[in-house]
């Protein structure tokens, strides 16, 4: 008995020991090494498909590092073991090279990897030379001339964002992963090229299969199709939310049982762009291409709120709108114009009377502000209003009292920058639209590299109160050339000019925008949403993520982070403190409870709201998709993005394995035939009863 117990305990010991040292790893996991990155995906408009897709089961290519342009020749002139997956650094990710790879076809080039080796990068913009060319005022060369860098709005653009690639493009940002890929290439591929076809090579497999194809018309038809039994979705329209707020609270639509249908309010419309875009899913901050304008916009709103009395004496008001989806043929502003024309802005649910075009005095659109020393005021026609605003802007920009030392030039012609104002001018060329836009100097327009480094932003992190306006010579220990000071200067100039327009009096104060607010704003949108400004504008005790908000418009059910934060931010900055209202009574709009700068919580009377940013093309029954009237952009659906590397056996190896399998199959058939035909040799003595059964 004791012996048996001993044996059992020894067995148990061995088993438990084995369980601890044996790593139960699957063969699959040993074969593959996952690679993290961001994938290019497919978008469609009324006539084309753009972007990339892998094959259904994933595209596989042999890694090949491209260090200089000549390395591409190896891949393009009869490579030994196709298909290949070139690893391209950003400075070689040019239109010329990519189009050559596209021409080589998916048989030779099956995957393209963009590796984050930026030391030789001088420029990287894949937007068109003329962004939104066909949805603006007109598509003539007067507005934008793609062939003339001096006359277009993105001279460094390659237009690759609007090309359709037959292979997936995968961006690998993490340098450890890049090193891993390079090492695999060096160890297995980068020697004895003549024997490539005969040996195992390091290869990458990328899965990014796209369901939609052809164009928006086809994929929307298929998605809405009644016979679509699987319920599969092919594509979704790009869709988001515009955020708007007014300087003064508006009167409700129904007062004393009387409904206001036509309001006699007068508005100055101040607008900017909320979104940005890049080629790769989930990467891209759009620091220079749209965040600068958005920052100035927010500061102008806050400064005006602080400078002007809390209630308007007459009916003059300012409507601040930040449009979403402008990167894709002005989705937000097209919808805004469409709604306003139908007297559906703001929507009935907001309880405020609709605003018509007659209610708008003029529009001031803040476009891209790449270089603030070269800002121009654009207008289609040289009106007296345009002259007046220009004079006012320059009055403050050049004033020795403030020392901004800027000069705002003007251009009154059809050479208009690609901003939201074009949607308004398209409806009516006589609409009073003014655009503040700087000469384009952004070499990373709409790209993954338009980040904090591109705008040279360093967070000062002072933890000081950013909500108070400051004296003009108080730089808050910031460098006078810093980005924060640039935002302060431009927004102060614009706010002062608007102040004069609204009140009719020159601004003579010495208070200007607080550069620390710019510091906090840019930190929130470029580095981390877990920041003092967003915290102040959220409900007390909110948990915020430490990633900057995604500013790509995305689709319904997408994150919509940026519009959410903007909603709270505009709500907080353009609201009136209500010290007498307790937290429990501060639940329904327009009352909104914020944490506030001190994080103690405060009730405020707000004016902000959302409006829908979905192109009117998706609302109109029987819309002609190729008409070019409205934005038609959709995004294909996909099931997964993944990439992994492994050793791909040589073709010889694969053919051998298959042939051996076929030979074994044939032999086994022969054997079975022979055995069954000679079965009496094996089963000689079958009893009679069994013979009947098996006979």
């Amino acid at each position: 008995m004791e012996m048996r117990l001993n044996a059992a305990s020894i067995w148990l010991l061995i088993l438990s020991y084995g369980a601890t040292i044996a790593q139960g790893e699957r063969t699959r996991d040993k074969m593959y090494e996952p690679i993290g990155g961001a994938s290019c995906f497919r978008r469609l408009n009324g006539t084309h498909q753009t972007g990339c897709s892998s094959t259904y089961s994933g595209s596989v290519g042999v890694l090949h590092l491209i260090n200089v342009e000549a390395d591409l020749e190896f891949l393009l002139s009869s490579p030994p073991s196709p298909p290949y997956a070139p690893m391209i650094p950003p400075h070689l990710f040019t239109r010329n090279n990519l189009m050559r790879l596209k021409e080589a076809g998916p048989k030779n080039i099956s995957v393209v990897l963009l590796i984050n080796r930026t030391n030789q990068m001088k420029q990287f913009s894949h937007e068109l030379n003329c962004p939104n060319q066909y949805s603006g005022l007109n598509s003539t060369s007067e507005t934008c001339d793609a062939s003339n860098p001096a006359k277009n709005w993105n001279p460094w653009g390659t237009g690759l964002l609007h090309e359709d690639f037959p292979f997936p493009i995968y961006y690998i940002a993490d340098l450890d992963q890049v090193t891993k890929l390079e090492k695999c290439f060096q160890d297995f591929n980068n020697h004895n090229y003549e024997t490539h076809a005969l040996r195992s090579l390091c290869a990458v497999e990328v899965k990014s299969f796209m369901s939609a194809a052809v164009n928006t018309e086809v994929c929307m038809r298929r998605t809405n199709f009644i016979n679509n039994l699987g319920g599969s979705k092919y594509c979704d329209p790009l869709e988001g939310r515009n955020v708007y707020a007014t300087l003064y609270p508006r009167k409700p639509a129904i007062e004393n049982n009387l409904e206001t249908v036509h309001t006699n309010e007068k508005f100055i419309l101040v607008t900017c762009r909320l979104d940005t875009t890049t080629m790769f899913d989930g990467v891209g901050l759009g620091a220079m291409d749209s965040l600068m304008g958005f920052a100035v916009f927010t500061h102008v709103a806050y400064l005006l709120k602080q400078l002007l009395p809390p209630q308007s004496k007459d009916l003059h008001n300012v409507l601040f709108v930040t449009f979403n989806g402008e990167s894709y043929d002005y989705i937000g502003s097209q919808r805004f114009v469409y709604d306003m024309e139908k007297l559906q802005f703001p929507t009935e649910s907001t309880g405020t009377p609709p605003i018509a075009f007659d209610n708008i005095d003029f529009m001031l659109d803040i476009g891209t502000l790449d270089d603030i020393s070269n800002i121009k005021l654009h207008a289609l026609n040289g009106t007296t209003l345009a002259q007046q605003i220009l004079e006012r802007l320059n009055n403050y920009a050049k004033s020795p009292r403030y020392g901004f030392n800027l000069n705002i030039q003007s251009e009154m012609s059809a050479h208009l920058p690609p901003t939201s104002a074009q949607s308004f001018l398209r409806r009516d060329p006589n609409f009073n639209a003014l655009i503040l836009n700087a000469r384009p100097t952004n070499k990373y327009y709409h790209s993954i590299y338009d980040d904090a480094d591109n705008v040279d932003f360093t967070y000062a992190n002072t933890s000081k109160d950013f909500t108070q306006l400051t004296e003009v010579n108080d730089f808050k220990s910031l460098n006078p050339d810093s980005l924060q000071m640039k935002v302060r200067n431009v927004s102060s100039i614009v706010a002062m000019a608007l102040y004069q327009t609204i009140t009719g009096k020159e601004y003579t104060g010495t208070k200007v925008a607080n550069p620390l607010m710019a510091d906090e704003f840019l930190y929130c949108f470029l580095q981390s949403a877990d920041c003092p400004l967003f915290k102040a504008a959220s409900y007390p005790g909110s948990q915020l993520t430490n990633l900057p908000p995604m500013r790509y418009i995305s689709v319904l059910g997408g994150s919509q982070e940026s519009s959410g934060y903007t909603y709270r931010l505009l709500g907080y900055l353009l609201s009136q403190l209500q010290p007498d209202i307790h937290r429990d009574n501060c639940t329904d709009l327009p009352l909104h409870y914020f944490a506030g700068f001190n994080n103690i919580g405060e009730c405020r009377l707000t004016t902000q709201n959302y409006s829908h940013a979905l192109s009117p093309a998706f609302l109109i029954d029987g819309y002609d998709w190729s008409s070019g009237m409205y934005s038609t952009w959709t995004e294909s659906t996909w099931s997964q993005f993944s990439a992994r590397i492994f050793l791909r056996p040589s073709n010889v190896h694969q053919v051998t394995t298959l042939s051996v399998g076929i030979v074994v199959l044939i032999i086994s058939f022969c054997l079975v035939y022979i055995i069954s035909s000679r079965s009496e040799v094996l089963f000689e003595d079958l009893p009679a009863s069994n013979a009947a059964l098996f006979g």
Partner: protein
Amino acid sequence: MDISKAPNPRKLELCRKYFFAGFAFLPFVWAINVCWFFTEAFHKPPFSEQSQIKRYVIYSAVGTLFWLIVLTAWIIIFQTNRTAWGATADYMSFIIPLGSA
């Protein structure tokens, strides 16, 4: 069911049923009829119902062939022209391929 064990009148009845059922746009029933009763109709020693069974089998075979030609032609025409027909072809389809025209 083992047809060889059924009596001859039963065979005829079955063969006739299958033949008429085939008219309900069921060419596979005709095809089954042909396979099932082919030996009965042509290889078995003559019996009284055989001539009728033979007739039904031949008619079923003709019907199957007719359907085969029509379906093959349609499938070839449809598949080669599906993308060109655009919306019309989509409305005819139950399953639309992912990621291609």
